[in-house]
């Protein structure tokens, strides 16, 4: 069990002063499940601090009623108190654990000054924000401060929220102590900062039929799929770079008709972190390619070449369909004696092709 790993998981769905969302509560559920899973984050329950509309609101609260905006929660205090123990530890110069996960889903915005001086500054609107008074928590500021203070060896920050900018809402940094940190320790903190959208862009949520017709953040689903399916290296480690590439490769497919901007994922300047280690170091699932012939004559042979055009296999068709399991990658399938061929991209899902 990852007893030295901790998580702060925030999801805000009910915004009486803005448009309420459907996804964040579900995003929190999914990510928390992964954190708890033995072959996921493997965190003890007590190490996960959750802050959602559901946890904070009484049943009497009606998020659609703007009159109650001042009662809307989680508010800034609810969220900031989750960081407090780690800020105190950082102020005292203590190291508190191996890794801190910070997951935030809801409405958000990016810092509205020169876009390229602070490209990462991103805030999550608190539930009591409205279009005039944009109350928020600058989540990236906490991640950066904890990283500077080297409170953890690794910081995983995931923000599934918009990063558009709003001049009406000045970006306010939290009140954090001015303490002198060891720059060498800070340099060695491994990071994985993932944002659903690049600076200035909106994140999207979507209803997923295959997930019980519930709404989730598209980025959260891409992340969870990467965590479930991304391949481990020969040591069984699934690294940040692998997760990043996987997300970039699948997010458009997951988004479907919804157009999403490319996510922004920063791996920091120190070594890439290992998200987790798969007990079975081979792929968790070797996808299946099913080839159907346009016309079956009984003597066709299928030649398979890998991405470097090396011959992998030649398989005779016994019927009009043929299936083969392969590692993710690019492949060329061709039918001997014909000019019929197909190039395919194999990620982790089974696919069917016709040649």
């Amino acid at each position, binding site marked *: 069990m990852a007893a030295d790993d901790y998580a702060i998981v925030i999801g805000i769905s009910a915004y009486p002063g803005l448009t*309420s969302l459907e996804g964040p509560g579900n995003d929190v559920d999914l990510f928390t499940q992964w954190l708890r899973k033995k072959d996921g984050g493997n965190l003890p329950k007590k190490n996960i601090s959750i802050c959602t509309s559901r946890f904070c609101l009484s049943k009497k609260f009606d*998020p*659609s009623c703007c009159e109650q905006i001042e009662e809307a929660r989680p508010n800034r205090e609810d969220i900031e108190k989750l960081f407090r123990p780690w800020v105190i530890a950082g102020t005292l110069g203590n190291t508190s654990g191996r890794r801190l996960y910070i997951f935030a889903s809801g409405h958000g915005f990016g810092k*509205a*000054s*020169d*876009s*390229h001086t602070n490209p990462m500054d991103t805030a999550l609107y608190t539930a009591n924000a409205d*279009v*005039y008074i944009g109350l928020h928590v600058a989540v990236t500021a906490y991640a950066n401060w904890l990283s500077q203070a080297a409170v953890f060896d690794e910081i995983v920050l995931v923000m599934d929220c918009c990063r*558009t*900018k*709003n*001049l*009406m809402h*000045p*970006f*306010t940094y939290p*009140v*954090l*102590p*001015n303490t002198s940190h060891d720059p060498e320790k800070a340099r060695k903190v491994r990071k994985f900062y993932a944002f659903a959208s*690049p*600076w*200035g*862009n909106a994140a999207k949520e979507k209803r997923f039929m295959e997930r019980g017709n519930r709404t989730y953040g598209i980025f959260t689903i891409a992340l969870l799929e990467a965590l479930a399916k991304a391949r481990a290296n020969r040591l069984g480690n699934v690294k940040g770079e692998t997760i990043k*590439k996987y997300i970039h*490769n699948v997010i*458009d497919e997951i988004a479907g008709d919804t*157009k999403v*901007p*490319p996510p922004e994922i920063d791996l920091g300047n120190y070594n890439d972190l290992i998200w987790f280690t798969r007990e079975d170091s081979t792929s968790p699932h070797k996808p299946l390619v099913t080839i159907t012939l346009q016309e079956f004559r009984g003597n066709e042979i299928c030649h398979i*070449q*890998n*991405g*470097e*055009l090396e011959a992998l296999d030649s398989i005779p068709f016994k019927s009009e369909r043929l299936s083969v399991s392969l590692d*993710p*990658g*690019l*492949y*060329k399938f061709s039918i001997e004696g014909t000019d019929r061929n197909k*190039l*395919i*991209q194999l990620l982790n899902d089974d696919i069917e092709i016709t040649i």
Partner: protein
Amino acid sequence: MTSKSRSEKKIPLTIQAPDNATEIFLVSNRFERIESGIGKLEQSVSPGLYKVRFRSGMTQEDRLIEVGNNQSQVVFKEPPLSFESTTPLLNTHEDNARQRTIASQQSGKVHLKAGKGSRLFLFIRHQHSGSSENPGEGVTLHSLEGKTIAGMDDGIHNSENGCWCLQVELDPGTYRLQVDTGALGTFERFLVACENWQTLFFGMTTDFSLRESEAVEEHITRVLLKSSSVHMMKTGKIFDPASASSRMTELSKIALESGRTVVDENSFGKLFAENIDNPMFGIYGAHQLLTNRRPDYTIIDAIAGKLESLIGPHPDVLSLWLRKSSDRLDKKSFALSSPPMLTRSWELLTRESLRRSSIVPEGSFSDLFSNGMLSTAPWLLHRVTMEPETGSGTPSRARTQEMLGDLARISGTTKGFSMLDAALKERKDLTQLEHSIAQAMLNQAQHHSAPLPSLNKLVENFTVPSVAIKRSTKSLFEKLELKQKG
């Protein structure tokens, strides 16, 4: 002579995008990015399979290609990609042939004369032409001083094809295009009309209904200013939805919107010359290049110079000179009293106002209206509100800093903190900016080791010109009836 092994053998690969504003990413069979480019990518690669990703606007398309062992070179050309476009262009997601034709035909007509020398063409459409509601509903055009020039009834509504348009002939200058969205308020954006040029505004409608449940019957459909698009062409010309320059300009606008750069620094001069009939391409492109880590100012300066000679003192062109090292800025003393169209220009303007507060003249529109400015990339929007009055008179920089110091000192005491906190909660006569300054003081007071909110910091944080911060600080001081130190 021995044949080269696979790893040593390299084959020239050329990937040609459908246009010079489409990004190209070449990815290996291990899904690792090998190289990227804009418009065209040339790379020598080992024989094998590759993935090529094309990105036009927000549309991404992947292609798999084979570079065979026996090929001496491989050239891969991608046909035009359909992308989401506010402007009614050929081969885009929302392509509607009738709307395209109407936009083109009407762009050559004048529906209203309110001056002379330049034209503004407004074209608003529904995404789905089935709606009979007028897309121009709630739209009004005003002079910078607030005088109403035109409204929905002045334009042409084609209910069958879900579009509305209006061409106004007017004097060159900056105009305010307002949209009343009902409960969410009235928003405006700025449009610059240049002498002998026609500025074309394209917008699509969206639902502004405040719906918390499906029970709401009334739908408020209005044009969405933040995703609108602006093109330019010479007066007398007709908008061509199939032209390469319209497509390039639209893609360049989308890139600015999403913080990407789709113009290549080295070929920008050539591209600008090719698309000179639509100067907005040059404006969008130059602003993209300014965001590069190390911009090549010789290229940007050259483009800015050409744009200025082409369309005159357009605020979004003048703002390209606003940087510390620009000789031109020192030689050329100008003020930007009217706001630019682009957020990026506004950011440059507010930053420059710290060095030269005269860049935004006191009492100008840019000064007085900076309170409700909203920047939603790429356009600078303004929320039209009945703001409480702010005081008059702008103190000096030193005096402002002194007042900020006094405010910090007062809010640092228990009594002062409570007074300021209560004022923020209860007083209705504070403007948004005054409110924000007071809030910054309370934040500082809560954390004593935080640096004092300086004029520079407030300009940076609120993205408003220094003159507005100075005046609002003085006004806040007066409204709270605070006494000066000493």
